[in-house]
């Protein structure tokens, strides 16, 4: 997946308002966002994520690391 599409999807799932999203942008994952993220990661990266792992995602870079930077063009 292209990185800009990944960021656009994440922005929509997490309802981020920021115009400029950087790896250091803080994220908060509510119950709805967690379900949408689970579906997104499974569909596009064939990755499963546990509730514990979700709690460890604090910034955009944590999400990028989870999917693997090499999987984002």
């Amino acid at each position, binding site marked *: 997946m292209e990185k800009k599409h990944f960021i656009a999807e994440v922005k929509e*799932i997490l*309802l981020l308002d920021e115009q400029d999203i950087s790896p250091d942008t803080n994220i908060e994952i*509510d*119950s*709805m966002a*967690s*379900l*949408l993220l*689970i*579906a997104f990661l*499974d*569909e596009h990266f064939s990755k499963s994520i546990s*509730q514990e792992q979700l709690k460890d995602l604090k910034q955009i870079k944590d999400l990028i690391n989870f999917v693997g930077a090499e999987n984002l063009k």
Partner: protein
Amino acid sequence: MQKVALHALKVDYVLEKDGYHLINYSNLSQKDSLKLLAIRNHHSVRTRMVNSNLISEENHLNFILNLPKQNVGYWALKYKNDLLGSISLVDYNEKEGSFVGGNFIAPKIIGSGFGAVINYYMHYVAFEKIKCNKIKAIVKKDNINAIRINKLFGAIHINEYDSKNEIGNDYISLEFPAEYWINGIKEKSRKIIEYVL
């Protein structure tokens, strides 16, 4: 287009998840009917609905008495003896094989992700039991979580709700085709609800 099973609008369903049932409104005890009405009338539930007015007990019980005469389906979702929410399929369109779907969940589980579960069972009943071709839905524009859930279920955003319609411009109109359910949404959403249940 497959034949819609209208008789299936009137029955109860034991769901595959242990302890979960869909009870047709016509088969609910009066006590449970009134408990469900109290949930529906709760401020945090009814204000998300197209018709957000309070419904009286008398009107609700009369409404249930008239259901058997109509091509509509209303079910309460129960877990053991606990009422968790409701799903409905109304406004049957014979030409399209479609229904307008609706649902709500109890205030105590709003924000828990259970909205995905009630939506899963609405799609399950509509496409696997009633065998309709399409679910239509109308969602308030400011109900962000409902819009997010609907995306998960493959909603096609038809248009902003017709401004000529009496309910005005505050709604969006969505459609869910049966083929989307069969070709991936069922499997995808099944995985999601496992996280909630």
